[in-house]
C-alpha cells in the first residue's frame, strides 16, 4: 500500500509545535496586539501598524454598517393564490352603499389588497359612474380609527365572551328590542333582521336617514319614486340637489347628461329650472336658477301647482316660464323637490301626475331612502321612558346625526342592553355597552336592491383586517342560526337566479349586478299622507317667516358625515361650488354681509332652537337674500383623528316636528369677533372676462350657427390673421406611435369632483390638511375651476374706465351663472415647463406626454411658475414622514395605511415637483396588454382615472393618432365649432381640447 503524500501549509505545521497545534483550531489567528499593548506601548509588537489595521477595519465596518439598507418586509407566497400575480391588478365587482348614495363598483386589488374603486359599467343604474364618496371609501377600510376588535364598555373583549353575554341578556330581556339603522337596501340583511325578530318577537327595526326624505316617502304613499332624468326635457327642481347629494346623484347625473350633451348632429338640450336657497352643484348647472327662501318654497310649489293644475297665474317671471314649459313638455316634464315638507312633496307629486311625467316611476320604486323620522322619534322617547330593553345600532349614529342627539344619549343610558355595530367607537358606539364592529364593505358579502328589480352584490376583496365580524353574522349568531351570512345570502338568492344556480351566482358575483327582486312582496302602496287640497291648505296656512332663515344642506364630499367623516380625501375635496375644504361655514349672501359688515372668515354665533354653534362666514353668491346655509356632516366628536373637531355640528339646528325633521329654521346671527380662515382652494371667483380661458354660449346661438359659439384667437402674421400655432420658434415633435390627448366637454361637466378623488386615489396624491390648504398648497393634480359670472365685462371699459371695470369684474353677480372647468396638466406640445427646467426633469415623451422624472427633479419650481395653467404641485414637505401631516395624511405613515397606495405610482419625495401624468401607468399597462396579444391598443382600453370615474363622460381620453378613436372623431367634429384650447394664443399647443359650454338660456349670455 502506497503511503499518501503529506502536504503541509507551512514550516510550523510540519514542525507541529504546541503553539501551532493550539492555534490551528481557532478560526482566526490570534495575533492582534491589543492585549500586548496594555502594558507599555514600547513593549507592544508593531503597535502603529496594528493600530492602523484596527482603525481601517473599524472605519470599514462603521461605513458598511451605516450603508445598510433598511429592512423591507417582503414575504413570498408559500402557496400562491391562483388568481393573484404580483404586479397584476385584479378587479372584483362589488357595491358601495352606506345609507346615502348607491354605486356599483369594481374593486381594484393588488396583491390581495383593495387600492381603488372604479365604476362598474355593467350596472344598469350607475353605468360605470362613481361618486367622489364612493371613490374615497376605499380609504375607510384602512382607517386606523376603526375599532379593531369587539369591546365591552370600550375595552377589548373576546368575540365569544361578548356573544355569550349578549345571548344571555337577550334571553332574559324585558321591554322592546330596537335595531336602529340608516336605510338598508339589502334584502338579505332585512331577512336576517326578520329572522332575529322572529327569535326575539319584541324586536322593531327602525330606519332613519340623517338627511331625511321621509316627506317624499309619505307623499308618495310610502314609496320613493325612481326618477329618470333622461326622459325629462324640462326639469324643475325645488331645492333638490339631484346632481350632488339627493337620493342617487351618480344615477341622476348619468341620466341628466343625456339631454345636456350637444353636438352638431344633436342641437337640443333639456331646460333646467332650479329654485333653491343655497347655490348647490345642481343649481350651478341649471339654465335658470332662482334663489328662494326656505319659507317661500311652499309658495313656489303652490304657484307652480296652481299654474299647471289649477290654471292660476304663477308668481315670478321665471316661475311662469317654468310652468308654461312644464305644461308644454307634458310627459317629458319633471318636477322634483328636496324638501322634507309633506305638503310640498304632495304638490310636486300632483304636478308630475298632472303633466303625466314619464320620468317618474312608482312601479319600480327606489329603495335608497326608507327612513321614517317619526318612528325614530318615538323610539327615542320610549328609550327615555325606559320601555326599551335592548337597542342595537346598526351603522347608525343618532347621538351625532340627529337633531335631538342629547335625548338620544340620555336614552341610550336608560337602555339596559345597548349594542353597536358601528365600525368605530363613535358618538353612539362609545355610549353602547357592547361594541361588535361590522366588517368594512370591502370585507363583506352582501346584496343590495337599490331599485326594485335591480339587484347587486358585494363580495369580500380582502380578508378581514381586524377581529371584526359582519353584523349579519352577529345577528344570526344571536338568533341562534349557525349558518354563515354568505350561505344565508346564497340561499336567499336561490329564488331569484333561475336555472343552474352556481353558474348564475358566479355570473352575478362576477358582474356585481343581477336582474330580479328579493323584496319580500311588492312594496305596499299606502295612501299618500295628504291630498293635494290638504297640501294647498297646509301651505296657505303656514306661518310667514320673519328674520334670517337657515337652510341646512349636505356636502358632496362628507355627506351626512357618518361614514365619510374621518376620510381625509373627502375632507380635502373642495366643495364644488364654494371650493372650501375642511369644515363647514355660514354661507351668507353678499348683501347680508355688507349690511352687517361681516368679512369672510369672521366667526358668527348661529343660534336656533336655543342651541348655538360658531362658524366662520363665507360670502356665497347666489345665496337667497335673508338666508344663510350651513352644511351638516361636520363637527364630529369621535370620528377619528381626521374628522374630529372639523367644523361644527349643524344637526341640532334642524327643527324636529312630530311627523319629521325640517332642515330649515329661523336663526339669529351674532358676530363673535373671532376670526377663522376658511380653507378654500380657489379664492378668486370670477373669470375676469377672459374668453381665452373658458368659453360659453347659448343654445340659440348654437342652433343658429355652431361655428359662432367659440371665439378663436388669431395672431397677426405677414400673411394676415392666422391660428396661433402657425408661427412657432420650436420644432414640432413627431409622434410615430401614439399621441395621447383628452377632450373635456364643459357642457357635460357638472363639477361633482369625482375625478378629483379618482385622481387622488390612483396617483397617491398627498393630503395636506386645513392649514396647508389655507397656505394654498393643496396637492390635487386634478382640480375643477369654478367661475361665477360677473355683472361687469370688458364692454364697460369705454364707459366706466379700465380700472373701475377690472375692479368690478372681481365681484361675482348676486345670482351668478356658474361654469366648471376641470383643470389638469395640459400636456403641451410646446410645453413652457420643459424648456425652463435646468436639469431636464420634465421632458416630452414620444407619445405626447409631458413627463416628470421625480428622481431628477431638484425642485427649482421654475416649471410651476412658467406653467400658464398652474397645474404643477410642489412637495413643500415630506408629507409621508413630517409629523405635521400624520393625522391628515396618516395612510402614508403606517403599514396599514400604505396598503391603499397604488404600487405603480411613486410617493413623491420632499422637494420635487409633481403633476398629472395622464395616468402614464395605465397607458403603459394598456400598451403592454395589447403588445402581449400582438395588436395595437384598442380605443377605450386605455383610460385615465379621471375619465374612468366621470359620471357624465365629460372627459374623453384617447389616441389622437388613431383616426377612428372617439377622441379623434370628437375633435374632427368639433374643430371650428366648440373645440378650443385654453390660452390658445400663447401657443403652448395643449393636448387637451375643451368644448365650449352651451347654456339653454333665453337671454344671451355674455359672450354670445
Amino acid at each position, binding site marked *: 500500500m502506497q503511503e499518501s503524500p503529506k502536504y503541509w501549509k507551512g514550516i510550523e505545521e510540519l514542525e507541529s509545535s504546541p503553539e501551532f497545534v493550539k492555534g490551528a483550531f481557532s478560526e482566526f489567528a490570534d495575533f492582534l496586539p491589543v492585549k500586548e499593548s496594555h502594558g507599555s506601548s514600547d513593549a507592544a509588537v508593531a503597535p502603529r501598524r496594528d493600530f492602523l489595521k484596527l482603525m481601517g477595519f473599524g472605519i470599514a465596518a462603521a461605513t458598511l454598517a451605516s450603508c445598510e439598507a433598511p429592512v423591507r418586509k417582503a414575504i413570498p407566497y408559500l402557496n400562491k393564490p391562483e388568481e393573484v400575480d404580483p404586479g397584476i391588478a385584479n378587479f372584483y365587482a362589488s357595491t358601495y352603499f352606506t345609507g346615502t348614495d348607491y354605486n356599483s363598483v369594481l374593486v381594484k386589488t393588488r396583491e390581495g389588497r383593495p387600492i381603488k374603486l372604479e365604476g362598474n359599467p355593467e350596472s344598469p343604474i350607475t353605468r360605470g359612474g362613481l361618486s367622489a364618496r364612493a371613490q374615497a371609501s376605499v380609504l375607510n377600510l384602512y382607517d386606523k380609527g376603526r375599532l379593531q376588535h369587539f369591546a365591552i364598555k370600550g375595552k377589548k373583549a373576546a368575540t365569544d365572551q361578548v356573544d355569550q353575554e349578549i345571548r344571555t341578556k337577550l334571553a332574559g330581556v324585558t321591554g322592546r328590542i330596537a335595531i336602529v339603522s340608516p336605510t338598508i337596501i339589502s334584502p338579505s340583511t332585512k331577512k336576517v333582521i326578520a329572522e332575529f325578530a322572529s327569535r326575539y318577537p319584541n324586536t322593531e327595526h327602525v330606519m332613519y336617514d340623517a338627511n331625511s326624505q321621509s316627506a317624499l316617502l309619505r307623499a308618495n304613499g310610502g314609496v320613493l319614486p325612481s326618477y329618470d332624468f333622461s326622459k325629462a326635457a324640462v326639469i324643475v327642481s325645488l331645492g333638490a340637489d339631484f346632481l350632488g347629494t339627493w337620493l342617487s346623484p351618480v344615477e341622476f347625473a348619468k341620466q341628466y347628461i343625456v339631454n345636456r350633451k350637444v353636438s352638431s348632429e344633436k342641437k337640443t338640450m333639456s331646460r333646467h329650472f332650479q329654485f333653491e336657497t343655497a347655490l348647490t352643484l345642481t343649481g350651478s348647472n341649471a339654465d335658470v336658477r332662482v334663489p328662494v327662501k326656505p319659507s317661500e318654497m311652499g309658495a313656489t310649489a303652490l304657484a307652480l301647482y296652481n299654474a299647471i293644475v289649477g290654471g292660476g297665474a304663477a308668481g315670478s317671471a321665471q316661475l311662469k316660464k317654468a310652468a308654461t314649459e312644464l305644461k308644454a313638455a307634458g310627459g317629458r316634464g319633471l318636477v322634483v323637490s328636496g324638501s322634507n315638507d309633506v305638503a310640498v312633496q304632495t304638490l310636486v307629486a300632483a304636478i308630475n301626475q298632472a303633466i303625466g311625467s314619464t320620468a317618474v316611476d312608482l312601479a319600480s320604486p327606489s329603495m335608497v331612502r326608507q327612513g321614517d323620522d317619526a318612528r325614530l322619534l318615538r323610539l327615542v322617547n320610549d328609550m327615555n321612558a325606559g320601555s326599551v330593553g335592548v337597542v342595537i345600532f346598526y351603522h347608525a349614529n343618532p347621538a351625532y346625526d340627529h337633531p335631538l342627539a342629547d335625548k338620544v344619549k340620555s336614552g341610550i343610558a336608560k337602555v339596559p342592553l345597548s349594542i353597536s355595530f358601528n365600525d368605530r367607537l363613535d358618538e353612539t358606539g362609545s355610549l353602547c355597552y357592547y361594541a361588535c364592529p361590522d366588517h368594512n364593505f370591502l370585507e363583506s358579502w352582501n346584496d343590495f336592491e337599490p331599485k326594485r328589480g335591480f339587484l347587486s352584490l358585494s363580495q369580500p376583496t380582502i380578508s378581514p383586517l381586524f377581529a371584526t365580524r359582519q353584523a349579519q353574522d352577529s345577528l344570526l349568531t344571536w338568533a341562534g342560526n349557525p349558518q354563515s351570512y354568505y350561505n344565508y345570502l346564497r340561499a336567499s338568492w336561490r329564488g331569484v337566479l333561475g336555472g343552474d344556480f352556481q353558474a348564475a351566482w358566479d355570473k352575478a358575483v362576477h358582474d356585481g349586478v343581477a336582474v330580479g327582486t328579493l323584496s319580500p312582496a311588492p312594496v305596499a302602496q299606502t295612501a299618500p299622507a295628504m291630498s293635494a287640497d290638504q297640501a294647498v291648505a297646509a301651505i296657505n296656512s303656514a306661518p310667514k317667516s320673519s328674520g334670517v332663515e337657515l337652510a341646512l344642506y349636505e356636502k358632496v364630499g362628507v355627506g351626512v358625515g357618518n361614514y365619510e367623516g374621518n376620510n381625509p380625501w373627502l375632507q380635502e375635496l373642495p366643495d364644488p361650488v364654494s371650493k372650501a375644504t375642511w369644515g363647514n361655514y355660514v354661507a351668507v349672501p353678499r348683501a347680508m354681509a355688507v349690511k352687517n359688515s361681516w368679512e369672510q372668515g369672521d366667526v358668527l354665533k348661529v343660534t336656533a332652537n336655543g342651541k348655538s354653534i360658531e362658524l366662520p362666514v363665507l360670502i356665497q353668491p347666489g345665496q337667497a337674500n335673508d338666508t344663510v346655509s350651513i352644511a351638516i356632516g361636520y363637527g364630529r366628536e369621535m370620528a377619528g383623528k381626521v374628522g374630529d373637531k372639523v367644523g361644527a355640528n349643524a344637526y341640532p339646528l334642524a327643527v324636529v316636528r312630530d311627523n319629521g325633521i325640517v332642515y330649515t329654521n329661523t336663526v339669529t346671527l351674532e358676530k363673535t369677533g373671532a376670526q377663522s380662515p376658511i380653507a378654500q382652494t*380657489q*379664492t*378668486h*371667483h*370670477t*373669470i*375676469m372676462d*377672459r374668453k*381665452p*380661458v373658458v368659453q360659453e354660449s347659448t343654445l340659440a346661438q348654437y342652433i343658429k350657427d355652431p361655428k359662432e359659439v367659440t371665439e378663436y384667437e388669431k395672431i397677426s402674421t405677414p400673411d394676415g390673421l392666422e391660428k396661433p400655432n402657425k408661427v412657432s420658434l420650436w420644432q414640432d415633435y413627431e409622434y410615430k406611435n401614439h399621441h395621447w390627448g383628452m377632450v373635456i366637454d364643459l357642457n357635460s361637466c357638472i363639477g361633482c369632483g369625482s375625478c378629483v378623488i379618482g385622481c387622488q386615489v390612483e396617483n397617491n396624491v398627498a393630503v395636506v390638511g386645513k392649514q396647508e390648504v389655507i*397656505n*394654498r*398648497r*393643496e396637492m390635487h393634480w386634478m*382640480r375643477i*375651476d*369654478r*367661475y361665477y359670472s360677473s355683472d361687469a365685462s370688458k364692454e364697460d371699459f369705454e364707459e366706466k374706465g*379700465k*380700472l373701475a371695470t*377690472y375692479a368690478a369684474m372681481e365681484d361675482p353677480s348676486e345670482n351668478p351663472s356658474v361654469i366648471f*372647468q376641470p*383643470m389638469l396638466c395640459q400636456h403641451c406640445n410646446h410645453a*413652457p415647463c420643459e*424648456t*425652463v*427646467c*435646468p*436639469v*431636464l426633469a420634465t421632458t416630452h415623451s414620444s407619445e405626447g406626454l409631458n413627463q416628470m422624472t421625480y428622481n*431628477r*427633479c*431638484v*425642485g*427649482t*419650481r*421654475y416649471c*410651476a*411658475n*412658467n406653467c*400658464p*395653467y*398652474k397645474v*404643477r*404641485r*410642489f*412637495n*413643500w*414637505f*415630506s408629507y409621508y414622514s*413630517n409629523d405635521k401631516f400624520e393625522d391628515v395624511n396618516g395612510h402614508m405613515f403606517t403599514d396599514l395605511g400604505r396598503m391603499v397606495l397604488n404600487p405603480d405610482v411613486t410617493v413623491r*419625495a*420632499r*422637494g*420635487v*415637483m409633481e403633476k398629472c401624468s395622464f395616468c402614464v401607468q395605465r397607458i403603459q399597462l394598456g400598451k403592454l396588454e395589447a403588445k402581449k396579444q400582438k395588436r395595437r391598443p384598442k380605443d377605450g382600453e386605455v383610460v385615465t382615472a379621471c375619465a374612468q370615474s366621470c359620471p357624465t363622460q365629460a372627459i374623453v381620453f384617447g389616441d389622437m393618432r388613431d383616426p377612428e378613436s372617439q377622441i379623434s372623431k370628437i375633435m374632427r367634429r368639433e374643430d371650428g365649432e366648440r373645440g378650443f384650447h*385654453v*390660452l390658445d394664443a*400663447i401657443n*403652448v399647443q395643449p393636448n387637451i381640447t375643451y368644448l365650449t359650454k352651451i347654456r339653454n338660456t333665453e337671454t344671451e349670455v355674455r359672450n354670445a
Partner: protein
Amino acid sequence: MQHVSPVREPLVTGGKSYHDVTQDVCRQVEAAPNVRWMAALSVALFFLGIFLYSVYRTLWYGIGEWGLNKTVGWAWDITNFVWWVGIGHAGTLISAVLLLFRQKWRSSINRAAEAMTIFAVICAAMFPVLHMGRPWLAFYVFPLQNTLGSLWANFNSPLLWDVFAISTYFTVSLVFWYTGLVPDFATIRDRAKGPIAKVAYSLLSMGWTGSAKHWSRYETVSLILAGVSTPLVLSVHTIVSMDFATSVVPGWHTTIFPPYFVAGAIFSGFAMVLTLMLITRVVFKLEDYITMEHIALMNKIMMITGSIVGVAYITEFFIAWYSQVEFEQYAFINRATGPYWWAYASMMTCNVITPQLVWIRKVRYSIPLTFILSIIVNIGMWFERFVIIVTSLHRDYLPSSWVMFSPSIIDIGIYVGTLGLFFTLFLLFAKFFPVINMAEVKTVLKYTVDNGPTYTGHDPHHDLIHKPTTHGVPATAPVNYNKHD
C-alpha cells in the same frame, strides 16, 4: 497725451504723502480691533445666527417653511437673489469699466467695492441653492459626466445660464480682487510684527517683491481681467433677467429686461457702495481718500442709472398698452393698482423719484442725505424685484389660481440673515484686509503737474498702465521703503 488741468480737484485730500497712505490704510489692519468694530461684528454675527437657524429649518423641514404656494413659486428667495447679484455689479463696474475708462477716482473705492461684489455674490449664490427643493442634488445642474450618459443639463434653461453666469462672475471677481490685493498684502507683510500676521500675509502676498517684472505682470493681469470683467457687468444681469424674460408669465415675458436689469443692478450697486463707504470712511478715518468728490460722482451714477430704470418702468407700461395683449395689460394694471399696489408705489417712489433729488448739488454733497438716499434706493430695488416676481406670479393667466403671497418668519430670517452674512464678511475684510488700494491710490496722489507728493516727470495717467516698467521711480516705491521705517 492727456492734458492735466492745473485746476483739477485733488482725488485725495489732506496733502498725503506716500507714507501717510501706507500708515492710514495699514493702521486698522495692524491695530487691535476697536470697540465699534467689535460691536458691529457682534450684530452681524447675531444676524448670521438667524441666517443659520433659518437655513436649518429650510433644509430640515423643506421649502414649506417659507411662504410660497402653488401659484407663487418664487418670492423672497429670488427677489433676494436678484437683489444681491445686482448689488455686486457696482464693484465690477468700478474695478473694470472705470479702469478701462481711466476714471482715476475709482482707486480709493475699488477695493471695498470689489469686496462688496464678492460678498454680495456669495449672499446671492445662497438663494439658488437654498430655494431648491432638494439642494443636496444641486450638482445636477452641472453638465457632469454620468454613468447613463443620457442625463445632461438643459441648455435651454435660463437657470442653467445662471449657473454659468454667476460662477464665472464670482470666479473672475475673486481673481481680480485678489490680484489687486497682492501688492498691498506685501506692504502689510513687510510691516507685520506678529508671527501669525507675518506668515499669513506672506502666504497671501504670494512672494510679491515689488520688482519691475511683478509690476509689469500686475498691470497686464489687471488689464486683462478688466477686459474680461467688463462684459460680465452686462452679461450677468442680462442672464439673470432672462430667468424672467424667457418665460411666458405676463409681466416677466418682456424683451426690455436685459438693459433694464443691468441699469437697475448698477443703480442698486452704487447705492450699496455708498452705504458701505460712508460708514467705512468714518469708522476708519479715511475721509481724505473717499472724498466728497467720490460721493458726488457716485451719486451722479446713481441718478443716471435710476433714470434709466424709471424709463424702463414706463416703457413696460407703454408696451403693455401697445401690445394689446389682454393678460399683459392686466398684469401691469394689477401691478400698479392691485392688492400689491403698495409694493409698486414703494418701488416707484424709491427708485424713480428719490434719485432725481441728486440734481440738487446740496443733496449730492450732503453725507447724511446721500446715506439716506442710498438706503432708500436699496429698499426700492428690493421692491422692484419683489414687484416683478410676486405681482406677476400671483395673478397670471387663470383667475382660479390667483393667490396672495405673504412671507413666513423663515423667509424674513433668511433675508436679514444674508445681511448678517454680508456684514460679517465685510467687517472681517475691513479689519484684516487693506480697505483701500494703497498701491493705486499712491498713483493718484499727484493730481496736477504742480501738485503732489513727488514729481515723476511724466503724465500720471500714463503711470497707471506702465508706471513701474519703463519709467523712473515707481509710484509705489514707498511700499518697499516701509520695511526700513
